């Protein structure tokens, strides 16, 4: 996990649900390219073709509400999104994003499409470099931060069993 993330903003509002992020009819595929080609189709049809590697989503309340489909954060990550900042997240989406190593950051941030934003995950500082404003994120709890730092839940688990800290139930 990068210490400082810097990228271009895509601005979304409240209650961006999982059907907007990746509609149910596109889920029956193993192709991440296919998923990413439809990402955010329900909210902003131009997103999938215009999103670039390193972009950051800034949104309002309850981001990712709805389904447990992990394809929602997977599609965003595969499309190039490196972090999502929102006032709040729906819990299954939040957990899924952490599990796949996509930083989801709780903060209320003013930013418009195209603004440049930087996030310091360790200090908790967020800067809108375009507007010249600064914000603080709600800190991660230690457990989630350790999963993120290991690059996701699977890596975190494998590291744990390798070091023999936890029993191997297999």
């Amino acid at each position, binding site marked *: 996990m990068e210490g400082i993330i810097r990228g271009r903003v895509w601005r979304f509002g409240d209650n961006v649900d999982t059907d907007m992020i990746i509609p149910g009819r596109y*889920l*029956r595929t193993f192709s991440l390219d296919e998923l990413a080609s439809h990402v955010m189709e329900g909210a902003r*049809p131009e997103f999938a073709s215009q999103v670039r590697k390193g972009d950051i989503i800034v949104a309002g309340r309850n981001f990712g509400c709805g389904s447990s*489909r992990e394809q929602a954060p997977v599609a965003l990550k595969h499309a190039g999104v490196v972090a999502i900042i929102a006032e709040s997240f*729906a819990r299954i989406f939040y957990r899924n994003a952490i599990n796949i190593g996509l930083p989801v950051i709780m903060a209320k941030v003013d930013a418009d499409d195209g603004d440049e934003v930087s996030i310091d995950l360790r200090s908790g500082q967020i800067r809108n470099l375009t507007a010249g404003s600064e914000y603080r994120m709600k800190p991660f709890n230690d*457990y989630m931060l350790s999963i993120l730092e290991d690059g996701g839940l699977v890596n975190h*688990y494998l590291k744990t069993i390798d070091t023999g800290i936890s029993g191997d139930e*297999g």
Partner: protein
Amino acid sequence: MVKMNMTEKILAEAAGLREVTPGEIIEARVDLAMTHDGTSPPTIRTFRDIASRGGPARVWDPERIVMVFDHNVPANTIGAAEFQRVTREFAREQGIVNIFQNAAGICHQVLPERGFVRPGMVIVGADSHTCTYGAFGAFATGMGATDMAMVFATGKTWFMVPEAMRIEVTGEPEGHVYAKDVILHIIGEIGVDGATYRSVEFTGDTIESMDVSGRMTICNMAVEMGAKNGIMEPNRQTLDYVRARTGREFRVYSSDEDSQYLEDHHFDVSDLEPQVACPDDVDNVYPVHRVEGTHIDEAFLGSCTNGRYEDLKIAAEVIGDRRVHEDVRFIVSPASREIYLKALEDGIIETFIRAGAIVCNPGCGPCLGAHMGVLAPGEVSIATTNRNFRGRMGDPASSVYLANPAVVAESAIEGVISAPQQEAGNGC
């Protein structure tokens, strides 16, 4: 001794702790894990990734995993067929015998019906509406594929012990007012993120006297206000239901009288009208009279929220010998084969067919906009389902209203959103 609520007691037991407190992170034993045809393949892929990198190659306990094909049954695309093939092969390889492939029903109906759900259990499902099982006094919550793959590998998962909200519901609603109206009304007041990360405990005389079907409808929609789980203390009807379906032992938990809740809410539903959640958020709720006359193209009766026998019976009684409006597609999908068969034997299915409805096999049906009737741009559906997100049931420019089975049936007949005129008995 710390006073604990039901959710805390179940989680403490599952974590092997005497007590837990909100905010604490615990590692809990999982009693039952469920995946369906949409979420099994991503789970299997991650499980195989774990295995290929030195993790377990066998699932922790094949008898504690249940797989249900319900989202795309029978498969409607080659991708859906491939997902089901991959799942079937994995189940065979791993010795998972509890796999329901041929339209046995929606996972959240099949699991209780087949006796897999008992009070006091920790149940995780790779589906957000797994919270339905809280109706049986279980701790049940939804999770994604990576979390589920870890459960398959280890039989454990981590939880942050949730802060709790208590929602007391009192009063006997009259007319065509049902559990669906109660939960829509609650979500309208609490908001779509009003219970985020929290445990929601439903109490009060309305809940205590409610049948199993209605209790499931209410807990099913706990996630629509953001909750981690919804839970109810099992009543007599619930215990009878469970005992009729499994001989296995279980433990019933109750909340300590003076256990702590972050918030307490009270709803008196005595004078409640039928409720409708309007596009595009589940908390955009109005009494039905405010939206009567709204044009519809489709009406859908079914889903894990309202596809049970009781729901079908209510709708059939509203329809009687009338016919579906010529401009409306009325789609009916019973929530399980057991329900389908009973409704068939009792003439309920015949009522629908004679009325001109499209009766589909058990499954999720058109709820998720991938199968069995999708909406064109600009089209409107009124559905007994749980989500009215923009584009949920088809094109992003289509819309969905959520309502109870009686309102959906009456609307199918009238061609516009309508409340039934006939008097009904006690709805809940």
